[in-house]
């Protein structure tokens, strides 16, 4: 009952610990506040907490180098509890009461979209760190909203050809029954049709399904070449675990689009299987500044490596700081304009391809790390994915004209 109060107290204690060092470092200057809303409790808690870890590292790095326009950054984190109403309320609170200059969030696509309504109304620059549904930088795009993570269409495009050529042309889907799942499945099915394959079925599983056996019975009866798994978080874990116990992976190829290190870590070794795309991966050959980033995160998390989510949080904070320092302003309107075609430097992008925000839809052109899950890390127990190719964002993303985005700038 008193969960929110409890959480607020917890968040306050956490924020106080993080906030104190740099307030001391830049005495006398009022901090520039960034508000972050993410589902720290609920089914997406693990990925959300990693976004916060990444954001905090960025804040500390920036403050150690003199902050933004000589002022320190301060990160205020709020829990959306994976609930749209709460997410909106926390966003309003951060803007109205705490007077934050920028907003980051949310992991949940639905909450991210609702938050964008608020930030657009309040004219506050907003970076969507981890909500994937197409609309955010598509038909619902807004002048003040930028997105770091991939769109569902980019995810589908990054692996479709490979799955078709390697695994076969009859695909059966297990799809989470909400916005994210629907757009992702549509994108995959459209690609499959273009390639000349057939969809043998699409099992719409409600979000939070724990037992997938009924869907798996139907999927196996349809006898497809590939079983495509689109659920995320604990749903993905439950689904993969049951598939392997049922031995389905020995008869049908199992694969999907988005996969996350958080999910693979929650699985027993025998269930870490399949071809997927990661949105960022901590192990790459010869990428400048990557080693320092990984080492710094490991120092802060008791040895846990950064995940794509950590990088999302990190890049979201840097988006504001880099633009503000270059433009010498923290005005949301001016920064939103300056971020069109803004390219991320090596210290932030931490991947080989060019990474930049696209002017037409405000989507970050970030790479897809396509490869295969591996049961056990060879050199490191957390190395659970083998990256085979790193595909640039502007090749997986459809052109702006196909996204349905028309940006309306305030007069």
């Amino acid at each position: 009952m008193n969960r929110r109060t409890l959480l607020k107290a917890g968040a306050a204690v956490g924020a106080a610990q993080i906030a104190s060092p740099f307030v001391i470092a830049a005495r006398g200057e009022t901090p520039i506040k960034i508000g972050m809303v993410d589902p720290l409790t609920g089914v997406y808690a693990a990925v959300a907490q990693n976004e916060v870890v990444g954001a905090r590292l960025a804040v500390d790095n920036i403050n150690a180098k003199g902050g933004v326009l000589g002022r320190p950054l301060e990160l205020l984190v709020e829990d959306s509890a994976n609930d749209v109403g709460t997410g909106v309320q926390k966003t309003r609170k951060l803007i109205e009461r705490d007077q934050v200059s920028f907003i980051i969030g949310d992991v949940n696509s639905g909450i991210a979209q609702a938050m964008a309504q608020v930030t657009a109304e309040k004219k506050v620059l907003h970076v969507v760190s981890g909500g994937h549904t197409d609309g955010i930088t598509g038909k619902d795009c807004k002048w003040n909203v930028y997105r770091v993570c991939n769109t569902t269409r980019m995810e589908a495009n990054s692996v479709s050809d490979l799955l078709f050529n390697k695994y076969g042309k009859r695909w059966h889907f297990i799809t989470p029954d909400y916005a994210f799942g629907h757009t992702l499945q549509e994108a995959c099915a459209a690609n499959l049709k273009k390639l000349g394959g057939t969809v043998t079925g699409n099992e719409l599983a409600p979000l939070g399904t724990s037992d997938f056996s009924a869907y798996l019975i139907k999927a196996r009866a349809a006898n497809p070449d590939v079983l495509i798994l689109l659920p995320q978080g604990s749903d993905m874990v439950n689904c993969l675990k049951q598939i392997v116990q049922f031995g389905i992976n020995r008869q049908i190829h199992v694969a999907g689009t988005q996969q996350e290190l958080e999910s693979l870590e929650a699985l027993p070794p025998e269930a870490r299987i399949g071809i997927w795309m990661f949105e960022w991966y901590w192990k790459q050959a010869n990428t400048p500044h990557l080693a320092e980033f990984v080492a710094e995160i490991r120092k802060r998390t008791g040895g846990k490596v950064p995940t794509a989510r950590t990088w999302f949080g990190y890049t979201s904070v840097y988006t504001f700081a880099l633009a503000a320092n270059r433009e010498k302003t923290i005005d949301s309107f001016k920064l939103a304009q300056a971020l069109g075609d803004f390219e991320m430097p090596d210290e932030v992008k931490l991947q080989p391809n060019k990474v930049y925000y696209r002017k037409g839809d405000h989507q970050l052109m970030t790479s897809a790390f396509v490869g295969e899950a591996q049961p056990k890390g060879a050199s490191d127990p957390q190395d659970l994915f083998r990256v085979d190719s790193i595909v640039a964002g502007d090749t997986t993303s459809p052109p702006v004209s196909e996204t349905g985005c028309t940006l309306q700038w305030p007069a």
Partner: protein
Amino acid sequence: MTGGVVTSARSLTGARIFEVQRADAMTQLLLFNVTNGLIIGAFYVLMALGLSLILNLSNVINFAHGGFLVIGGYIAYTITPYLGFWGALLVAPLLTAAIGIVVERILIRPLYGRDPLYSLLLTFGLAFIIEDGTRFIWGAQGKPVTIPAFLAQPLSYEFFFITGYRLFMVLMVVASVSLLFALLRYTRLGMRIRAGTLDLETVSALGINVGMLRSLNFAVGVFLAGLSGVLAAGQLGLEPTMGTGLLMPSFVAIIVGGVGSLPGTLFGGLLIGVASGVTAVFLPSASEAIMYVLMAVVLLIRPRGLFGEEGMMT
């Protein structure tokens, strides 16, 4: 002409064969899902029996039951490296029950004299505390629990959804239910629990330590939650929120079966398992909702539940 007739006759037979095959496939799908539903239902039964025990004797609607399930699962995860899966299967539910006794003594006992709403609110809050507590101790990141390899595979190619582990789970449920019913039927403690369920005041007047009785009864209920947790962790991802999703079907099982009746709970659990399994074939999006529809229908037609006795919830 003749040729044409033969061809159409052939294609007719072909169509019939196809029809028969389709009907066969449908029957098989249905059969599979009924069996599958029974397996899922068996799990709900284990959860629901513990809830039902506590509700019947102490009038406590234990919303923290899902939390105890999660505790059981995490304890199993923690001790598996030392004791193995089998050791954890035995020890984790016992430790969970021990935590249950402490919770009952300190938090729930003071509320027995009051309206059941008080203990409902308390356990509702406790559920959140347990969820955040497990997140605090073990982290938000899900944990992998590995089960013995020989259980983690299907028994036959055809019935691939009956894995060694799921069969083992059903056997565990059967054994627990049999033991529980034997305990209630043949032991002194069981008789007292049953008598207390019917009339606690008289039992107390006869000189039986009701406080002790409630504690033990609560512990048995939480033991079952802990056992469910260990079993669930074997086939689902172990994470702090997993209890919530498993708790509601158990409540529905109790209400459908009838409050106050353990056989009713048993039947209710199996029924909603099958109902949700079969619905998943035809209308997947309604596979969860069907439980609540079933509950609504039962409540409309027979408000006390299928096996319930009148006036148990007053």
